[in-house]
């Protein structure tokens, strides 16, 4: 696979050539690809990118700056995998190529990103420091001035919603007991950025699980699953974080001593954790451990929609039509849930369980919103362009609430809708279910007071 040598890599090593042969050039992927839909250029399509990779490997084409740009332009949304009749592993091929491009010095991740990958995301205290600094800047009102100086990248960052106060950024307890008759125990991923920006979502997910009859355990010393590293050309970093994640979750068991399901409320992390085995050669002992671990990983919606948990959830749901207060609701599929994990029905089924909730389908809901991990920060202009048709589709539904299941998408929608001045509330699935199972208190439909610049 990849090499650690500093010696210049041969072009063929830039590409997972064997995988590229699965593509028969039929072109069925073209229209699924957000970047191709945007530019109309086939070099920005999955078939085109594979064609370029193959040409590089066969030494017909030099891996020049344009090549690197087309590889970086990809959102890694993996929509193409959903429609590929030949079963091409596009995501894995792209991760391989990006990693090789970084290693061979052809692609240089920006300094700040590199620092974040190597240090901030790996250590909880660094993360906390960063968010505290950010919040201070926001409170002082200097946030916008600060980012205005960063040019076009800054303009986008200036739209980031307010970093929540420390109370919302508090850590999850190591154990949340089942709130009613106990049905089992689960482990939950707290994550790296999640608790800093969307701690309330984690807590909502834990509450719903608890109210549905599950003990929720959280490994206190775990930070990051490594998915952002894998997507952005740092497979070594991803491997290290995968090992620590597997090790952190292996001891967590249910009441019978069997490994507990690992519930993940962030689609990007879940997708990556389900594919850990790809990171390790088949003779590596970690390969087996990764496989066993991945089998335990369940998306929050996937876990809850399965019969045992669903039954518990149904008992916990309020009967006074809590869905009514939300108004019309629509669901936007996160790419890493629908394309990477194949989870499409469970979130919809869960929403449809909520008494009084009116759900409509969002046209082209499986198209990427342009968040794509840190893509929105690396290529802000492209990210904006990819987001635009999503707003148009949302307008068509007349929905008041947009439900998502991934923090990146949540952020993209939140900032995007504020920028486009749409009065639509973005809610993670966990929060909708939390409201619908809240034993007392009111269900509110108003948009939170925060919500951006």
């Amino acid at each position, binding site marked *: 696979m990849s090499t650690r040598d500093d010696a210049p890599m041969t072009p063929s090593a830039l590409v997972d050539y064997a995988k590229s042969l699965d593509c*028969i050039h039929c072109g069925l992927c*073209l229209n699924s690809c957000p970047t191709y839909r945007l*530019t109309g250029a086939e070099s920005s399509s999955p078939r085109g990118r594979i064609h370029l990779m193959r040409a590089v490997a066969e030494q017909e084409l030099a891996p020049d700056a344009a090549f690197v740009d087309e590889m970086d332009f990809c959102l890694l949304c993996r929509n193409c995998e959903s429609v*590929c009749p030949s*079963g091409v592993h596009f995501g894995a091929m792209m991760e391989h190529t990006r990693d090789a491009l970084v290693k061979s010095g052809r692609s240089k991740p920006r300094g700040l990103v590199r620092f974040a990958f190597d240090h901030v995301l790996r250590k909880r205290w660094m993360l906390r420091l960063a968010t505290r600094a950010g919040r201070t800047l926001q409170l002082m009102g200097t946030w916008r001035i600060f980012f205005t100086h960063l040019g076009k990248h800054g303009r986008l960052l200036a739209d980031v919603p307010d970093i929540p106060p420390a109370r919302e950024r508090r850590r999850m307890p190591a154990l949340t007991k089942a709130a009613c008759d106990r049905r089992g125990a689960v482990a939950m991923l707290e994550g790296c950025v999640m608790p800093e920006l969307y701690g309330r979502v984690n807590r909502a997910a834990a509450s719903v699980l608890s109210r549905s009859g599950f003990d929720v355990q959280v490994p206190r010393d775990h930070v990051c699953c490594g998915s952002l590293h894998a997507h952005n050309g740092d497979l070594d970093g991803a491997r290290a974080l995968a090992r620590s994640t597997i090790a952190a979750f292996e001891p967590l068991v249910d009441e019978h001593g069997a490994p507990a399901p690992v519930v993940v409320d962030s689609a990007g992390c879940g997708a990556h954790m389900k594919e850990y085995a790809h990171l390790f050669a088949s003779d590596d002992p970690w390969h087996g451990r990764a496989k066993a671990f991945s089998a335990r990983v369940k998306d929050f919606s996937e876990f809850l929609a399965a019969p045992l948990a669903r039954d518990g959830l149904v008992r916990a749901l309020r009967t006074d039509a809590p869905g009514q207060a939300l108004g019309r609701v629509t669901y936007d599929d996160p790419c890493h849930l629908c394309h990477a994990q194949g989870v499409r029905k469970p979130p919809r089924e869960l929403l449809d369980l909520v008494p009084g909730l009116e759900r409509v389908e969002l046209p082209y809901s499986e198209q990427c919103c342009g968040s794509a991990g840190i893509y929105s920060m690396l290529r802000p202009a492209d990210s904006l362009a990819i987001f635009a048709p999503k707003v148009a589709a949302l307008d068509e539904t007349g929905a008041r609430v947009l439900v998502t299941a991934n923090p990146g998408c949540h952020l993209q929608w939140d900032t995007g809708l504020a920028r486009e001045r749409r009065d639509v509330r973005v809610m993670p699935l966990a929060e909708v279910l939390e409201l619908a199972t809240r034993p007392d208190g009111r269900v509110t439909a108003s948009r939170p007071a925060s919500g951006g610049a």
Partner: protein
Amino acid sequence: MDPKLIDGLRAIVGPAGLLADDVRRKPYESDALAYLKRIPELVVLPRDTRQCAAVMELCARHRVPVVARGAGTGLSGGATPVEGGIVLGLARMRDVLAIDPERRIARVQAGVVNSDLSIATAKHGLFYAPDPSSQKACTLGGNVAENSGGPHCFRHGSTTRHVEGLVIVTARGDVLDLSRPRADPLGLDLVGLFVGSEGLFGIATELTLRLLPIPPVTETLLAIYTSLEAACQAVTQVIAEGLEPSALEIIDKLTIEAVEASVLAAGYPQDAEAVLLVEVEGSEAEVASQTRALEPILRAFGAFELRRARDEAERARLWAGRKGAFGAMGRIAPDLYVIDAVVPRTKLAALVRATTAICRERRLKLANVFHAGDGNLHPNISYDRRDQDELARVIDAGHAILRTCIEHGGALSGEHGIGLEKLEAMEWLFTQDDLAAMCRVKEAWDPEGRMNPGKLIPVHTCMETRSALPSGGRA
């Protein structure tokens, strides 16, 4: 390339509309027929008819050949670039311009993807009927160029029956507005002539298309057979009895295996030698009477199992398997050669037998998936284009199959077109006189021969026509 031309083109389409570097031109070297390739000099991606006309006008001035391209999903090399030529891509012309639900007509730009139109019209209870297997990616403009078919063309007819009008940019860059739908053409039927002209006449930039009401009831039947021939005979009988299903599709064992191993697993039984997919649509009464008449015929030819797709999801899954069949074959070998030939519907079984023999003789892996109702065969041969010997055997088998079809009263293409792929075979089917008439029609549209040159009609035929013209060929 003349830098003046490059600058001129950039001025028309803007920097994002002109692809000039190696990396961005490389993916255009072939369409879905990957063994024929040539890197284009430039790729130009206009946004609208006006830009398209300006591009064509400039190319005319510089005498540059032009190859139009939709999504590049064609299978006959129709979009393969030509020597010294540019590719004019319609992929950025993807606006649905108007939907008229009262008259059931839509106006679209040529780059709109086939299935996107049906998505856009669904809220009016309407759909666009021609459904090539690549419908989720192929463009409507490409469909017009190739006169594309699809499974449901058995009932609704190929693209040409659904085109009510066109805006065409001619080789010289003139805009010919034939977009207004008419019950009958005024003068000669230029629109009808244009459909299926494979990019040799001009560029259709806007299309006026007929829409159909989504049928109130649709039922899909899956009949499972222990022999491919029995399935073919059942189809022949269904047609002979005057039944009118909307689609009649046959899928053979190797294809079933590939589909079931792919993401599109449709629940086709893997112990079957062939499955026949039959769809019936219409009013409640129509579907009921057709289905009642169909079942005994399907069973009479030995269907050992008959399944019915009841709900929308199950139906979609049965069809997803059929539509993705050819991609699923990618699991068997790196490349796939999809042959397209049409034969009299009464001779299906004999031709399937002959095709199998031809491939067996050449040690090739053959899978069959075809529009049986229309007599449209699709023998699929898996191969690896890096193996030159195998590639030669594949092409040889393709030729042998086409010759056999012609002997049985068939023709070279039911929906993929001739392009580069079947150029020489045109002379097996047509006489020099037949081809000369086509050449003259081509010359009326494109006197300089710059539109997709070297495709569809063997070049020497046209040269002879020119020299035979009484006025010395320059008329």
